[in-house]
């Protein structure tokens, strides 16, 4: 997980959850936003992992064809 957006959205989700206790009447809002941020964090993290895996596979196939 080295796409910095994943860390950013994880931090944003934690910030939203941190203030949740101050506004219990808006729990539905804070929880929805926190879940949305966690989905973004997961999406950016996995998208980055898939891209890296594809790049490694491509490099390996280039190495094999080279040798």
């Amino acid at each position, binding site marked *: 997980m080295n796409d910095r957006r994943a860390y950013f959205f994880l931090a944003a989700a934690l910030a939203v959850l941190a203030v949740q206790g*101050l*506004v219990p009447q808006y729990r539905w809002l804070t929880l929805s*936003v926190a879940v949305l941020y966690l989905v973004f964090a997961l999406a950016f993290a996995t998208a980055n992992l898939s891209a890296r895996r594809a790049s490694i596979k491509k490099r390996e196939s280039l190495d094999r064809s080279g040798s």
Partner: protein
Amino acid sequence: MEIGAIIVILVALAFDFTNGFHDAANSIATVVSTRVLSPRYAVIWAAFFNFVAFLIFSTHVANTIAKDVVVQEALTVGVIFAGLLGAIAWNLLTFWLGLPTSSSHALVGGMAGAAVVRGGFDVLISEGLATIGAFIVLSPLVGLAIGLLLTLIIQWVFHREKNLPKLNKGFRRGQLFSAAAFSLGHGGNDAQKTMGIILAVLIAVGSLPADAEVPLWVVLSAHTAIALGTLFGGWRIVKTMGFKLTKLQPSGGVAAESAAAATLFFASAQGIPVSTTHTITGAIVGVGASRRMSAVRWRVAGRVLWAWIFTIPGAAIVAGIFSLLVEALA
């Protein structure tokens, strides 16, 4: 009405004028930068929607400022005046330091600080302050989430579109509506802070009962002041928020303004005073983050974070000093 109350009302309207003057750039930045409207027409467009916001929003935010920050017994004309002076002084200080602080939070901090110096911490209404404090963090983060979500939806819907000039033309037109919606949200939330101050003064001097609603003349004068501020100041502020944070395309402008407008509409409907500048900042960061992290100028976003932390305590301290001065001179 006593002369002191009239002075405070005039200072509050001047504060509202400077709010329009300063924040107009937030709503016209993208329409001007994408040449949908000339700066002059963009300012007239924003000012018009600032003014007509009173037809759409009720006065919940004004009631929160007047009744949910400090107990009414502690809100004398002197305390309100000191709070207002503290907020203005804090805004000038942070403007000089280049910190993008919120005048709304300065106002809340100012009133709280001025009242605490006179009556101790018991005069504060913790529930109201907790909601305002939580939304200092939540409004930009909600704006950011909606901004990113709208950008992803736009990208998903139009990713097969080959005719980019046609697409951009469509979004340029869309910006007229999104800028109008943001100006409505700005007028609706920010003008009400001034209405709240005036309502508190009128209650303090006994012109209105404690449970009174905002009179129409107060609503109209606050909206007129903010619209005039936008009209006179907007086009002078060339360095726009849009370009400071990230370079926006027409579709990004539509997404950012719509996201910020949705957040402001929600806050106004719930009676929560939020920073319009911080909300649009969050939305613009959300649009920028859909591309890559380096598309966002994090130094500017980081300065907003400092502003979150310091505004309410900073304005409270400055207003506390003014409160002591007003008490000594009265």
